[in-house]
Every structure is written in structure tokens, then in C-alpha cells.
């Protein structure tokens, strides 16, 4: 066990001994006890955030760089506030504002950041797998803040944390994820994370927005390295029936332009979550969305602001969960 250092945030789970990750790239390699440690640590962080002075010195003298190759407001702000609440120095680098536009490669960029002695690199990139490349070539910890269609592990953790806040446990819950599954890193990470904590996931959307195959990958050498198979349906009523949680995903405008949907109207007619359709789920089911919401597309305005919506809670959870991860990654004895 690690001794609790003076100035560490209060809470029962301050040791980093149970956290075995150098980087946070996806939830596929997270063990259940690590996920629980993140939640436990986030509980402590919530206490810090509830104080008058929302600041703990746990990461004083540490530096965090957010390296974003894609636009983002909430994820980047959440990481920045999380780092600052733990007294880390936080620098923000965006692709357009850095030498990236001069043709500097990702490898060169992260190596430069490493040479400046940075402790944590938070990266968002439009190429699936880019954070794996970064983690391979540099020593500082890499946190994936979203890569292509692949993964968004901190979003999944904050989603799960929000559900746990309400239900106490995720084991045995029925979660319906609705929308553009094919292009969604949020869906992929949630499928991993929710399977690990014992929730049953149903994926729902029009066939053009679902992967053509989605099951376990057992490779020719017998490696089990696949997604635990979620249930897949095109039928929204079937997906929502008996669900404890309904999670809608953002529908990108370009899906229609790319010929995947005839019109936004057809999507809305079949898949928009309305108060009536939310009634197909269990009474009191949670309504979630990773944001930003296209109001009137994937969600009707009244459900966004309805009593079942926990969209704002997700944002608040995000801060606590990201503080927990930064602390577990960089706050322990080096």
C-alpha cells in the first residue's frame, strides 16, 4: 500500500498500487478491479470538487499536455480543469495552432513534448489507433481522449460512473446504445467497459450505421481479443424494452451526405428518442448522451431537459473521473 501523502485528496482509495496502467488507451485491457479503483478514486475527487477551494496539490510540479488534432470543447476543458484542480500545469496544443500544420509528424510532435519533460499527454486524433503510436514512441503516460472511430475510454468511464452513481452497481443492468454505432468511439469503449462490469448491452441503429460484423475476435492462434458480443437490433422498441439506461449517440451531418441515410427526417422518424419512446424503457430509466446533442435529431428537446436526463451529470462525472485517472497515472510515487 502506498502511504497517503500530506495534501492528497481525501477519500478511501488513494493508493495507486492497484492501478497497473501506464497509459489509458482503451478499456479492453482494464481489469474489473481497476475500473472500480477509478470509480472509488473519483468519489474522492467529487469531494474535492465539492469544497469551496476546488484544488488539491496531488499533481503539483507535474505537467499535462492536451494534444488535440480534432475540435473539442467539453473533453478538452474537462481534462484541463481536472489537471488544474490537482495543481498540475496544463498546456493545450491544437493541431491548427502548432507545427502540425507545417507537416510535423505525430511521432515528432510527441517526442518534442516528451523532451520538454511533460508527464502526461492527453491526445485526441482523427486516426483510429494514433494514441497507441504515441504511447509506443514516448515515455510519458498517454491518455486517449478519443481516436477516430475506435475508443474514448474516459467517456465510457464517466458514463459508467454516472450510471453507478444512480444505481449503485452496474452488474446486470440493461443498457441500450442508439444511433451511429459504426462511427462511434463512445459506443466501442462503452461496449468494452460495460461488459467488464456485467451490464448487458444492446446496440441499435439503422443497418448502414452498424458494423457488418461485430463479435468476438478469436484469431488463428487462439487469442481471444475481441469485443464481447453485444446484442444488435435495428428495432428501437426492441432495444429499449426493459432498458435501465438509454444512451443516444450524436448523429454527424456527413452521414447523410455520405449516402448512409436518405435524410435526417427518416432517422428522426425511426430512431429519435422522444418521451413516448423513452416510455418503452423501464420507468425511471436514465437518458444519456455524450454530447454535444443535436437537439431535435437524436433526442427531442423535451427529453434532453426531462427528469430522466442525466446529461449534465455526465459532464460533472467527467471531471471527477478524469481527475481520478490523472491522479492514478501521475500522482503515485514514480
Amino acid at each position, binding site marked *: 500500500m502506498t502511504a497517503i501523502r500530506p495534501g492528497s485528496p481525501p477519500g478511501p482509495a488513494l493508493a495507486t498500487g492497484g492501478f497497473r496502467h501506464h497509459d489509458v488507451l482503451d478499456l479492453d485491457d482494464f481489469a474489473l478491479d481497476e475500473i472500480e479503483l477509478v470509480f472509488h478514486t473519483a468519489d474522492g475527487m467529487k469531494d474535492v470538487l465539492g469544497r469551496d477551494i476546488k484544488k488539491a496539490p496531488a499533481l503539483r510540479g507535474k505537467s499535462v499536455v492536451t494534444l488535440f488534432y480534432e475540435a473539442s470543447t467539453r473533453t478538452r476543458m474537462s481534462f484541463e480543469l481536472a489537471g488544474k484542480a490537482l495543481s498540475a500545469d496544463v498546456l493545450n496544443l491544437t493541431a491548427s495552432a502548432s507545427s502540425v500544420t507545417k507537416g510535423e*509528424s*505525430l*511521432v515528432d510532435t510527441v517526442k518534442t513534448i516528451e523532451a520538454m519533460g511533460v508527464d502526461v499527454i492527453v491526445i485526441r*486524433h482523427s*486516426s*483510429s*489507433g*494514433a494514441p*497507441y*503510436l504515441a*504511447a*509506443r*514512441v514516448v515515455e510519458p503516460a498517454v491518455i486517449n481522449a478519443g*481516436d*477516430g*472511430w*475506435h*475508443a474514448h475510454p474516459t467517456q465510457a468511464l464517466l458514463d459508467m460512473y454516472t450510471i453507478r452513481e444512480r444505481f449503485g452497481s452496474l452488474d446486470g443492468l440493461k443498457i441500450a446504445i442508439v444511433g451511429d454505432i459504426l462511427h462511434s*468511439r463512445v459506443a*466501442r469503449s462503452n461496449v468494452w467497459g460495460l461488459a467488464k462490469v456485467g451490464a448487458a448491452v444492446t446496440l441499435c441503429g439503422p443497418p448502414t450505421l452498424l*458494423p*457488418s*460484423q*461485430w*463479435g*468476438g*475476435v478469436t*484469431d*488463428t*492462434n487462439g*487469442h481471444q*481479443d*475481441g*469485443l464481447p458480443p453485444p446484442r444488435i437490433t435495428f428495432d428501437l422498441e426492441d432495444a429499449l424494452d426493459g432498458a435501465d439506461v438509454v444512451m443516444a449517440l450524436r448523429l454527424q451531418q456527413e452521414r447523410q451526405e455520405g449516402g448512409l441515410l436518405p435524410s435526417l427526417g427518416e432517422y428522426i422518424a425511426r430512431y429519435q428518442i422522444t418521451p413516448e419512446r423513452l416510455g418503452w424503457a423501464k420507468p425511471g430509466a436514465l437518458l444519456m448522451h455524450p454530447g454535444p446533442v443535436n437537439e431535435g435529431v437524436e433526442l427531442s428537446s423535451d427529453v434532453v431537459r426531462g427528469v430522466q436526463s442525466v446529461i449534465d451529470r455526465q459532464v460533472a462525472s467527467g471531471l471527477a473521473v478524469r481527475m481520478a485517472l490523472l491522479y492514478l497515472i501521475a500522482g503515485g510515487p514514480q
Partner: protein
Amino acid sequence: MLLRGGRVIDPSQRLDAVASLLLSGGRVAWCSASGDPMPAGPHDVVEAAGLVVTPGFVDLHCHLREPGYEHKETIATGTRAAAAGGFTTVCAMANTRPVMDERSVVELVLRIARERGAVRVLPIGAVTRGLEGKALAAMAEMADAGVVAFSDDGQPVWDAVLMRHAMEYGLMFGLPIIDHCQDPALTKGATMHEGSVSARLGVRGWPAVGEDIMVARNIELSRLTGARVHIAHLSTAGGVEMVRRAKAEGLPVTAEVTPHHLTLTHERVLGCGHGLAGLTQGEACGSPEPYDTLARVAPPLRTIGDIEALMAGLNDGTIDCIATDHAPHALEDKLCEFDQAANGISCFETAFGSLMSLVHRGAIDLPLLIGKLTLAPAEILLGSGKQERPAGRSPLAPDGLGTLAVGAPADVVLLDPGAEWTVDPDKFLSKGKNSPLKGVRLKGRVVATYAGGVRVHG
């Protein structure tokens, strides 16, 4: 030079026997299996007991990168790598800079090959000018300069009308048109096989049908025009079946498969140690992480079911030959984001060793495998195969290519089918160290290579 007492396998003569072979004046001068008396010596003797002696391998498909991309490979380094892999004849694709789409570039490649090449280089001319898919390249001019085939490899000739015209115009020369079968719309932005792994990794997949549709188109255009069509790097079960049917109908269609499409699956993208079909990973490893750019190749590595279909196609003659698609790249072409990485595998130096895994696991007989690397590709170059009616040939492709018949060029390899070794790309003679087989244990090694009677490897 007398290669004494090896197991000589020469499919052109249906020969598989312990025999001695005399090389003299750059040609095969005598073989003990003929029963003729050995010409008077003295001869330098090379003991080949315990080794397999075969014709030098003939590769219908490689990228030597010169001119234009000498940081990836040169004709000098590429042909030395070829020699190390047992290849004595290699056909160089046209995607150089400038593109090999006119006589001057063909002549340049041939001149460099003469001056600095270790093995025979046969050029393949572009089908379209600049590989742009808009207008025909200078096909007649290049045929006169000695190209052995035409191909826009690296990309398909997507315009069916232009492909039809290329086939029709090409009837004058009787040379095969080699197509890289890829439907541009179905494969737009695709970086790996569409399946469970692409779904898992969240990358845009290239469905098998994105290849099959173009295989079907090319077969039908061959039926329409009567032109010889050779399908490059066939990778799908569906493609195998279409070529099988085309051959049964007597169409002049031939096909090749690469060593990597026979021994690796799409799961290889998950990291080294994954996706090995009949190969064994040793302790060394390139990248254990997913998104391994070394496994990026076009067409992509596919499924175990595709491998089984490809093996069936090799065994029943649907797939004529094995070609490496040796595609060397510089480090920076692969050390980047998965969707930014170059396609291709540096293959010359691992081809034989990885193919021997098929023999060791009983998926193909050694003599048949040797035929796929020697006689069969040579027949396509010489237009001497049974299926090829309007056959023409380049004057640069010599009689006796791919055989050990007396009078054939003294292109010979000595192979040790049981020698075990571990792939270390840093030791490749190729400039391209981009091999997904780093650390893989192979059983089967090229001991020595003779090109025109000159020892070029071993």
C-alpha cells in the same frame, strides 16, 4: 561448376531425384538424371547433398522503387534481396517516379539493372499514362523496349472502358495485362480487411467484394476482348472461385497469390503474435500493440477461410503462381498513424521460408510449390502456358526460363528446407525493413543462388 548430389526438383521436366547438375558458360550444361556421361572436367564442385536444387525463382510482381524512390529501395539493393530470397528473375512494377509509362523509363531501368543488378530484371509497363487511369500509356513503344506485361499495380484501372481499350490494343503484343483488383468506391479510405477486426479497431474496412467485383470485371473484359489477363495478388475466396470458373471456360486468365496472403490473416493488425496461420512467433517482436502498420498491405490480409480457399486454388491449378509483391518502404512510411501508413510488405527475403510452412504443415507438396515459383510464372512470361491463346513474349524473357533443362540459363537455387531461422528485418539486404514477420521462426532457407552461373547469394 558441378552441384553434386542434391535433390533436384525441376517441375518442367517432372524431375524430383537426387542428381548432379553441371553449370557451364552461364547455362545448364548437364544433368546426371539424363543418363548422359558427365562432360570432362575438371569442375569446381559444390556439395549439395542434403539440399534441394531448383531453378531460380521467378517473381512476376515486385517493386524495386528505382527511379524515384531510392530511399525505399534501389535496383541494386532490391535485386540483392531478391537473390537472397532465391529469385533470379524479378518483374518490376511501373509505379516509379517518373512512372514507367514510356520507352525512356523502361530503358533506364534496364540499363541500371544491367550495370548494378544482381539478378535478371524484367520491366512491366504502365497501362495508363502516369498511372492516372485516364489515357493509355505508350504500350507499343514499351513492348518494343521489352516490357513483359502491363500493369498500373498499386491501383486498379478503374475505368472499364479504358481497361477494355488497353486489352484490345494489347492484343498486338499478346502480353498479359496484370490488374490490381480494387473497386475504388467500395474501398475508399479502407485500410484493412472489413470484418471482425476492423469493427473492433474502428477502421474503415475493405470488404472482400471490393476485390471480387474487379476480378469479375476483368474476367468478363477478357471474355469480350480475348486478351490475356493476369490477376495480381488474389486474396479472397470469391476471387479464387471466379478464376476457377474462368479457366474452366477456357478464358486466358491467370492469377498469382503472395506469401503473406497465404500465411497471415487480418488479425495480424492486432499486433505481432496475432494472425499467424501456421507460423510461429519467436521472442523478438515488432509491435505487440494493435494498429500494426507492418500488416498494412493492399489487398489486405484476410481471413483463415480465404487462406484455405487460396490453398485449394494453388493445389488445383486455379492459382498459377506465387509472386512476392515485394514492396519495400522507408521507416517513416510505416512509423505513423495506421490510416496514414503506406501499404506493402518487404517480402523477398522471407518468401521461401514462410512458404515452407505450408509444406511443413502438409498444405502443399514441395515440388508443386517449386513449380509455382519457377515454371508457372515463367510460362506466363513466355506465353507458353496451355491457357494462353494469343500469347506473345518479351525478347528479354529467355528460353528455358524457370527450368533446369540443358541449355537453360544457369539460374539455380540451393535450398535447405529444414533449416530454422528467426526473421530479423535489420539484417535484410533490402532497404525495406517493413516485414510483419519480425521475430517469426521460419523453417526453410535459401542457401545459395546462382544467376547465369554466377553465385549471387550464399
